[in-house]
């Protein structure tokens, strides 16, 4: 066994753990997360790169939609009430696609949480990403944990002021860039950038940037872990999402306890010692200010940085990695039972180790088959079902629609020759960014003919009209039926609309009203 004397012991206090937490009105106690390296840290850098990349680059991607629509890949055009996502264009009445995506996001979060715990919190949540980013700046300027603690305690000096000012200035710059990127999703990005710089953009753009700058700076720079602990509802909901087969970041005390700083000396003295050398590395790196060795707790966002820190220490000691690891509650309990001989004794490392000191093969480790259980399969099925339904809706949706509103006042007009006339407001929705020639036809209602207000056409049962690209065309149509053809007070008929050049068509069932008795 390696000597433990070369393992630095950190004077770190888990200020936010339930044991240490102060009353709510007390001022926040600062935490100074130490830098880590390891597989989870590398994964987090990668996730940060990808998510920030998507966020900042997306509005600048171009997508050619022809001369009648904007060429921005992703654009939420609030003024014209259109949403563009690459080849997909959504009109306001198709907002159910967004609702469907939100439902998918919900099921996806359930699925993720029931399998790998709070992975969203630890890796992908914007709060985590931006706090990580802000910590990079803080470390670059003020140094790592010990330097920052010293600086924080030092009296004010030019050096301290310079460091603090430059740190906050860079934070604010990042915050402005965050809010600045957001508004590009709502207007043509290159044009808006010029307007923003020259001060000609809409007030709402500057207001949005100001608000998002403030929230980014305050949440990411100043509040940090308090956002997760006090403001976010998700830690409260997660309890319902986790079960005994969900992976969570776990301190395997069946292996680590009894912890001992001078384990070699203690072992020599014949004391029982576990793998934990109580170096506090896991506490020092924790961005939430807790001690994972106190078990699963509300504050833990499962960022897994303590796993990296502990694995590093175990490597240097020549012990097995995984004293802190992603473990399910079921595995943990099984191993705990092994270490305590079914709960009859205190934790005894001898129970889990062979004679040569290697870990026993009775220790249960994670089996990927655990991911497939009824709960996760149901979440996955629900998620897929919504996704397939959305896909089906997307592939079969109409790009040509007709809506008809019958005149209510008057419902009908009797003309001098005794024929009956009804008025209709007909709305043609040409939902593609190309002009189209549409044919409107009457189906049913024998003998009836249409007149279109504003179009100089003879009365007919069918007429062609030019529909503007990506626009609603509104027509006022009078339908007139000779008196001898009128059958009853209410007749049902249909307006059909067809695109002559393509295959799109739509129909609307309308009614034709006539007076009760005609004299």
């Amino acid at each position, binding site marked *: 066994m390696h000597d433990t004397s070369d393992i630095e012991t950190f004077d770190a206090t888990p200020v936010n753990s339930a044991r240490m937490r102060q009353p709510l*009105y007390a001022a926040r106690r600062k935490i100074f997360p130490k830098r880590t390296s390891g597989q989870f840290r590398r994964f987090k850098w990668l996730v940060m790169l990808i998510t920030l990349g998507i966020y900042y680059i997306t509005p600048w991607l171009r997508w050619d939609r022809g001369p009648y629509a904007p060429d921005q890949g992703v654009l939420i055009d609030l003024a014209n009430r259109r949403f563009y996502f690459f080849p997909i264009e959504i009109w306001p009445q198709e907002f159910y696609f967004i609702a469907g995506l939100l439902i998918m996001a919900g099921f996806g979060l359930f699925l993720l949480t029931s399998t790998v715990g709070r992975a969203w919190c630890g890796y992908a949540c914007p709060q985590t990403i931006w706090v990580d980013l802000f910590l990079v700046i803080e470390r670059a300027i003020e140094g790592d944990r010990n330097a920052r603690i010293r600086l924080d305690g030092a009296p004010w000096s030019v050096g301290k002021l310079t460091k603090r000012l430059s740190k906050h200035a860079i934070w604010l710059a990042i915050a402005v860039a965050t809010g600045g990127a957001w508004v590009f999703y709502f207007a043509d990005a290159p044009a808006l950038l010029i307007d923003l710089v020259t001060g000609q953009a809409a007030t709402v753009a500057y207001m949005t940037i100001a608000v998002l700058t403030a929230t980014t700076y305050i949440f990411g720079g100043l509040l940090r872990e308090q956002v997760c602990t006090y403001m976010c509802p998700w830690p409260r909901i997660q309890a319902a999402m986790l079960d005994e087969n969900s992976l969570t970041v776990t301190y395997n005390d069946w292996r680590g306890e009894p912890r001992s700083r001078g384990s070699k000396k203690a072992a020599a003295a014949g004391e029982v010692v576990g793998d934990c050398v109580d170096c506090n590395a896991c506490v020092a790196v924790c961005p939430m200010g807790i001690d994972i060795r106190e078990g699963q707790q509300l504050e833990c966002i499962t960022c897994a940085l303590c796993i990296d820190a502990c694995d590093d220490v175990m490597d240097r000691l020549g012990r097995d990695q995984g004293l802190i690891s992603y473990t399910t509650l079921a595995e943990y309990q099984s191993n705990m039972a092994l270490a305590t001989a079914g709960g009859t004794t205190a934790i005894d490392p001898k129970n889990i180790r062979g004679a040569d000191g290697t870990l026993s093969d009775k220790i249960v480790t994670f089996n990927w088959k655990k991911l497939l259980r009824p709960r996760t399969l149901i979440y996955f099925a629900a998620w897929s079902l919504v996704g397939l339904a959305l896909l089906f809706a997307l592939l079969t949706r109409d790009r040509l629609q007709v809506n008809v509103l019958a005149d209510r006042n008057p419902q009908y*007009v009797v*003309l001098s020759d005794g024929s009956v006339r009804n*008025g209709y407001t007909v709305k043609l929705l040409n939902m593609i960014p190309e002009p189209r020639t549409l044919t409107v036809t009457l189906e049913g209602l024998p003998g009836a003919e249409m*007149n279109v207000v504003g179009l100089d056409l003879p009365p007919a049962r069918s007429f062609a009209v030019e529909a503007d690209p990506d626009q609603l065309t509104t027509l006022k149509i009078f339908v007139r039926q000779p*008196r001898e053809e009128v059958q009853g007070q209410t007749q049902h008929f249909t307006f059909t609309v067809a695109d002559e050049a393509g295959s799109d068509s739509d129909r609307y069932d309308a009614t034709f009203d006539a007076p009760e008795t005609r004299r």
Partner: protein
Amino acid sequence: MSEKHIDDYSGVETTGHEWDGIRELDNPMPRWWLITWYVTIAWALVYMVLYPAWPLVTTATTGLLGYSSRAEIRAELDAAEVARADYVAAIDSLSVEEILADDQLRIFAASAGAASFRINCVQCHGSGAQGSPGYPNLNDDDWLWGGTVEAIRTAIAHGIRFADDPDTRYSEMPGFAGILESREITQVSAFVATFAGTADTASSEDIAAGKEIFALNCAACHGDDASGNRDLGAPDLTDAIWIYGSTPAEIAAQTRAPRHGVMPGWNDRLGESAVKELAVYVHSLGGGE
């Protein structure tokens, strides 16, 4: 107040009040709460200086920015006035035919006319311009005095049988109660009812007699074929539209002692431009010629 009392359990000072042994802890306010409170106070002070704040007897302090919600709405109304100035000027200077020929002007005038119609015309003609017995339906294609947009404008501008306007359209059908025998009136009504298809009970002799009576007494105004005369405002008796009813009894009543509606002239009340807008609107209802 008694001397300070410290709660044994929490170590926090209490307010000193006690209810049945229950004391209230005197915890300090949370800092964020205090900061927010101070900010709102500062905000209120600044606001009072910049904006109208203190009520006086008949007015209020104006504030340094001189903001006024009334001035704001005045500015918005003025801007709207400016925005439609071109249309208003065009409608003032152009004839109704010219307005009708211009798509944008037509739509603007019809919208303005619809608004005027709802204020001034619906009382008689109905909210859908559908009329009622005695008041013509403006949606149909039957016009006593002509259905071109200019004829409609003239009718609106000067009214029908409107004594105050010398240019008003005027015609009156004489009461035939003193001219024809009661039986003759029944006969001519039976004849006229044949156009409406309501003369089922009349004998063919009566109808034939009525036809002769019509030729002698009515054709002068209503025409030999009873199709009316727009110059005189004499209604077409052969069409399906009957302002006072189409049964023989209703026709007889109108022959004995005719009722005549009166429409005021609107030029003096609304001005020429509003009358043009109304004419364009009525013409757009579907019956315009």
